[in-house]
């Protein structure tokens, strides 16, 4: 102890002249810092109601609720997060995880209200003074809690695939599949968009858990064509996936395929279970494509006797005779069909209704009939000289390739069309050319600009890699024939526009910009139509029609009480829609035949 110890405390007196440091609140405004985690704001145009914010909130502060100003639509549940400030701890995990980046925070932290319920509010819907605040916590760019990138799919490289019909895509390993499955936030937005409403998050969960039997069971609840869809589905679900907004959508299709690939085929039946006892009712189905066979599968499981009549020597419809083997190997398709047949579905092959068995016969022998004949006939351009023998329809050639029938392989082919069928025939011909002639010579012409092609962008990319030449904005004007009658090319004009102001098909050409695409074969791939001659005059007359298609109600039933129709011939455009249709009509037929 010293004299200093007695005196030095008095140095505190020097503060007597200092200004007070306290901020008089609320007279002085003290804004929160730039990244302050203050009150929430939500951009409702951007928000998709996926509920991931609700799922991550460890305080249970968020409830997803319907709001008046938002309608449910594809990829948007129509729900919006309501936040309870009696529970929130401003951790901002909801902001960090938000799948669209719509949820952010302002730097406001003062909000006085006499009604305690006011602190339960829906940001962006209940207008607040801090809405659209620039400041406040926004998730930094690289701060991601859910991986935005898809696990890459291993595929054959160009060199090894160009002369081969082996399947291009290898499929995920178990580790890869689980990593991809981990990206799914289980919001379920995809379910509504899937035409057959597969329980996607549940089967993705089965992948995550490694419970493949449960996965297969879930797949079969809604889709007996999971081998096919796991490979070639047009995957509408992925375009609704929550994860696409700030990254790549979940590879839903590949995960489905992964489940399928993990279970030995012999075990399918055991996992799916047996059909119900026989009801004694009989249903005839015309066409063993995905629509017909899905309906058949559902109906036999309900205990009905089902006989499917198929004109061709094998089942599968366009999935067999259209889709090339390198996208969908026959053994994968066969597994789906064998499972359906093993449930008790009888398929009568090589039997064309209308030719081999008359339609009337079916009405007499069966309690109900389903027409699922697809679109077998290729549309024609009807341009000059398109009746030449070297002008083919894509579906006819694809059919020959599947059936192994001989045909003259073009040295140099020009394809008309920019859709998936055009890509399929172009890439099939290219493979055959590489095998037989050692080089690819295929030109694909289409009226649209390349970025507006109907074909899947992956298909276009792969076709280009395989040496196919794409010439867009080319409108076909006629086939060129030399004096000897030999086809020597296709004449096209540059397309200036395709549709008129009312969005009707009315192409405008620049006839000064003409190209002759030299070739020995022209292949038309501009669409298909149904051959409905099997109906016969009397039934055709009796049925109601809608723009050339049989009129059906929402259950798929025609104007004749015993006749239903499903699949491409009435709806389309792809396998999964055909499957959905199959389920719908099967349910309706079941109700009808068990009514009394």
């Amino acid at each position, binding site marked *: *102890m010293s004299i200093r110890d007695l005196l030095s405390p008095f140095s505190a007196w020097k503060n007597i002249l200092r200004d007070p440091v306290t901020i008089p609140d609320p007279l002085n405004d003290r804004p929160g810092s730039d990244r302050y985690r203050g009150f929430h704001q939500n951009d409702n145009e951007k928000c998709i109601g996926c509920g991931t914010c609700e799922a991550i909130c460890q305080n249970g502060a968020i409830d997803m609720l319907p709001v008046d100003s938002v309608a449910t639509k594809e990829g948007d549940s129509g729900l919006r997060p309501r936040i309870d400030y009696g529970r929130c701890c401003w951790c901002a995990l909801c902001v960090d995880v938000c799948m669209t980046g719509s949820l952010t925070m302002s730097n406001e932290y003062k909000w006085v209200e006499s009604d305690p319920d006011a602190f339960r509010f829906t940001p962006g819907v209940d207008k607040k003074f801090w809405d659209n605040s620039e400041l406040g916590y926004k998730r930094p760019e690289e701060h991601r809690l859910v991986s935005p990138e898809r696990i890459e799919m291993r595929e054959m490289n160009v060199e090894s695939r160009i002369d081969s019909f082996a399947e291009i895509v290898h499929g995920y390993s178990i580790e890869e599949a689980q990593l991809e499955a981990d990206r799914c936030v289980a919001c379920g937005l995809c379910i509504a968009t899937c035409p057959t409403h597969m329980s996607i998050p549940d089967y993705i969960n089965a992948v995550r858990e490694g419970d493949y039997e449960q996965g297969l069971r879930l797949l079969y609840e809604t889709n007996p064509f999971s081998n096919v869809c796991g490979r070639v589905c047009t995957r509408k679900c992925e375009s609704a996936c929550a994860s696409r907004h700030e990254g790549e959508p979940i590879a839903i299709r590949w995960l489905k395929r992964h489940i399928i690939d993990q279970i030995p085929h012999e075990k399918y039946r055991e996992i799916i279970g047996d059909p119900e006892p026989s009801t004694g009712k009989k249903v005839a189905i015309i066409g063993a494509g995905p629509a017909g066979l899905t309906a058949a599968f559902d109906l036999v499981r309900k205990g009905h006797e089902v006989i499917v009549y198929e004109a061709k020597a094998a089942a599968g419809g366009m999935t067999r005779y259209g889709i090339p083997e390198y996208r969908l190997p026959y053994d994968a398709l066969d597994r789906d069909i064998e499972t359906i047949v093993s449930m008790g579905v009888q398929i009568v092959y090589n039997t064309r209704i209308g030719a081999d068995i008359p339609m009337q016969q079916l009405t007499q022998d069966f309690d109900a009939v389903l027409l699922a004949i697809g679109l077998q006939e290729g549309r024609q351009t009807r341009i000059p000289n398109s009746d030449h023998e070297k002008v083919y329809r894509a579906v006819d050639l694809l059919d020959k390739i599947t059936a192994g029938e001989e045909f003259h392989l073009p040295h140099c082919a020009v394809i008309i069309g920019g859709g998936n069928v055009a890509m399929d025939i172009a890439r099939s011909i290219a493979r055959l050319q590489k095998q037989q002639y050692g080089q690819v010579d295929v030109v694909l012409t289409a009226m649209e600009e390349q970025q507006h092609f109907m074909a899947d962008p992956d298909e276009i990319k792969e076709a280009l890699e395989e040496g196919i030449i794409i010439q867009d904005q080319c409108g076909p004007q006629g086939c060129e024939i030399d004096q000897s009658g030999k086809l020597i090319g296709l004449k096209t004009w540059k397309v200036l526009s395709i549709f008129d102001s009312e969005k009707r098909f009315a192409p405008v050409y620049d006839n000064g910009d003409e190209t002759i695409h030299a070739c020995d074969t022209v292949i038309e791939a501009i669409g298909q139509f149904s051959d409905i001659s099997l109906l016969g005059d009397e039934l055709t007359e009796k049925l109601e029609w809608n723009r050339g298609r049989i009129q059906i109600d929402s259950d798929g039933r025609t104007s004749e009480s015993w006749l239903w129709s499903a699949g491409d011939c009435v709806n389309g455009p792809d396998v999964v829609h055909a499957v959905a249709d199959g389920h719908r009509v099967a349910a309706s037929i079941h109700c009808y035949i068990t009514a009394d």
Partner: protein
Amino acid sequence: MTYQPDRSQYPNKKADGSLDIDLKSGKFLKLWQGPQHPGITGNMSVELTVCGDEVVEGITHVGYLHRGFEKLMERRTFIQCFPIVCRICVPEPDFNEYCYAAAVEELAGIEAPEYANWIRTLILEMGRINSYLMYCGGQAGSFGMGVISQWTTYVRDLMLDRFEELTGARIYHMFILPGGVRDRLPEGFAQRMEETLCEIESTMSDVYNTMYCNAVFKKRSVGVGVIDIDLMDAYGVTGPNARAGGVAKDVRKDQPYLVYPELDFEPILGQDSDIYTRADIRRQDLLQSVDLVRQILAKMPEDGSLMAKIPSVMHWKIPRGETYIRGECSRGEYGYYLVTDGSGYPRRVNVRGPSYTHAMALLERMIVNLNIADVAGLMVSLHTYPPEIER
């Protein structure tokens, strides 16, 4: 502290060695210090038995603040635990964030990026400064000097401003998360931090003059509340409480973590192990942390990655394993014991806070023979935070 039987003739020892305290004899009085008492370090209480103004027995009571965090975490995913851990210790929350994140990272096989580790270290040192500022105010207050806490609260508030601009929050920062940190330093941060550090230094010099060079404070703290050197290990004494007795324990040095190996500092040691020495060690520690913050801001890389790639958090599972992560907080060794079982939730979390040992067992031992008036001073001098005792 040795037992001084000459101070009071009561209580007598019974044949079995236990104390003979008979309240009906009129010689003893039960006195509750806390839980509502300005001289208590938060929500706990000490049940004192006094004889005259001398404490003959003190039993600590905790449980007023038990929130069950460890159990709560067993029902939360690994990411959901992150916002709750900071609440375990209010005055120095960031240690929980760091220890939890490091434990998860170790078991999940993730390495946080270097830049993030610099920011983590910065935050921990900022937190240490704040914790000591709070302590200074409390220690002075326990001996009746109210003004010190007003000064330290003001500069602590300036540091909270820095926390706010860096982390987006003042108290519960929720900024260090498994994988890294949430954001980078804001523009001009170092400059504003320097201004704050200067203010703190100047305040601490005032505090030195008025508190540490104060006859009253010295009189009441020198030689009082001495922790015997041989108690240190038996009672798990760590941090400034140990260093004030010359025991060189500092996890930052003993088992370096984050970027401490790249920083220049030596543990500050004392000798007398009394309240005054402990207070002085903390003051010097505080100034050392001011220096460490300066070093960090000077040495850290301009920019870098904030987060390591972590699994998608919604389904994050961590393989079976267990680990104990420790670090040196302002009160001593702070640690997280984490057990995982391959599921998406922690199987067990145990938080080892230094206050558990210091505020309960050690205090009960030291409180005997103290004057009632010095109980508060002793408690504060052990620098304990009840929220972290109870979790």
